[in-house]
């Protein structure tokens, strides 16, 4: 069953998923223009794009544990997942700048210096920029796998900050952002434990 799945996954082309991944963006924007995003469309669009970005980040973080725990290999799709996350983060930021803050630069600067949750969100976004920038095979070859992998560990703090950004912007403690934060904590915790186990196994390699 697992082998069958992995074979099927190997045969699956990646490029259609970029188009599939772009569909929700277009869908929400179109509905927004048609007045179908409800009472507070700017907030709804901003929220959806941000949430989808976080979901793609989490999906990208699931690739390694899925391979190691379940033996399912989605490595070929990870770049797509990461780039989709970055794209939705760009859209989320664009909606915030253009439709929410309406390019009111003094207020944008004030938000970016005074509001911790906005600072966190922006920090998460900035961490994704070099990852998207070095996403092509050529960049991997140029940097070498060790440096490339080290740089791309930025995905961990970026996802953590994105999850905290979500928890921090809501009133009180509603369940949804807490569940996302718990998921991210589990994925990062699994990696931390795995790293410790490996170091314990191979002390000479440090």
């Amino acid at each position: 069953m697992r082998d069958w799945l992995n074979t099927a996954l190997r045969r699956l082309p990646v490029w259609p998923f970029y188009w599939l991944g772009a569909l929700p963006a277009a869908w929400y924007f179109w509905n927004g223009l048609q007045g179908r995003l409800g009472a507070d469309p700017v907030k709804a669009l901003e929220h959806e794009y941000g949430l989808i970005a976080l979901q793609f980040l989490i999906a990208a973080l699931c690739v390694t544990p899925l391979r190691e725990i379940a033996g399912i290999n989605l490595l070929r799709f990870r770049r797509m997942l990461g780039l989709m996350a970055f794209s939705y983060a760009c859209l989320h930021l664009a909606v915030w700048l253009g439709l929410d803050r309406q390019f009111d630069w003094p207020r944008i600067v004030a938000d970016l210096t005074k509001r911790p949750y906005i600072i966190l969100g922006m920090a998460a976004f900035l961490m994704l920029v070099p990852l998207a920038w070095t996403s092509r095979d050529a960049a991997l070859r140029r940097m070498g796998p060790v440096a490339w992998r080290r740089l791309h560990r930025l995905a961990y703090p970026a996802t953590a900050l994105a999850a905290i950004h979500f928890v921090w912007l809501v009133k009180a403690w509603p369940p949804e952002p807490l569940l996302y934060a718990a998921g991210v904590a589990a994925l990062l915790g699994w990696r931390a434990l795995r790293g410790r186990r490996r170091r314990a196994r191979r002390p000479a390699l440090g």
Partner: protein
Amino acid sequence: MGSRKDHQRRETAMHVREKPKFGESEITPKSAWLDRRSLMRGAAGLAAVGLLPATARRASAARYSTDAPPTAYEYVTTYNNFYEFGTGKSDPAKHAGQLTTSPWSVVIDGMVARPGTYALEDLVGPRTVEERIYRLRCVEGWSMVIPWLGVPLAGVLKRAEPAPGAKYVAFETLVRPAEMPGQSGIFQVLDWPYVEGLRLDEAMHPLTILATGLYGEPLPNQNGAPVRLVVPWKYGYKSIKSIVRITLTEKQPPTTWNIQNPREYGFYSNVNPEVDHPRWSQATERVIGGSLLSPQRDTEMFNGYAGEVAGLYAGMDLRKFH
């Protein structure tokens, strides 16, 4: 969905049947709200048939009402913060239908000469209900304009005869986990009951009303049926819903959001564009019902009611007493 509509319609019918003297034109039909002129015609009609007290009430109501166009009924009744039914904006509309709102009574106690349990009909005489079109500003940065039906809270409090030492009024929402899903389960977002409070002079201010309806209909459950507070110059969470107790006190009563996060939510919670919420600016507001490209509205001091209420806070540091 359909059954809730029916239920609502039934309630409306009951409302009218039980109160036959409540002239039909006294409550403006929903459609008329879209056209201010027909409202004026309605008022003129009342005057013509000699319903002078009603006209007088209408005039007093008009004095306090805004000319801003009311937010669509659909949004007023589907975009709600009523955490007793869940934290999502659409949760109240989804889950509040099951709430039993009749019979309903309100306990008035504490520092009053005539404490007691009052049936809602005795507390808010249907014949004294006025229309008030108020701005509503949510602390989250959005706003609506809502045509309420209600009575000034002052009259209700006066009937209970506040004692000379009473300085504050505390309010309490119903606790009924069987019908309020937000009050049961693992995620308890707030402490129940939801409690709110006003200074007595704020409570007695003519803008402060106990609302029992909106858009000419009985309050939909998700909007705080059967009776809620409306204090238009304060952030929305001060306007406590589904009230079961009103207590006059000497000391400032605890308030739910202040308990939840004292740094972010003060007792006064007056709308103030100059005092930011610690996590976001309060300078502007998104007008509900707008499009993706609608400009935001500059938030006004006391939500535009400074002329009426600024005097209540003369000499107070509104940054400290936020």
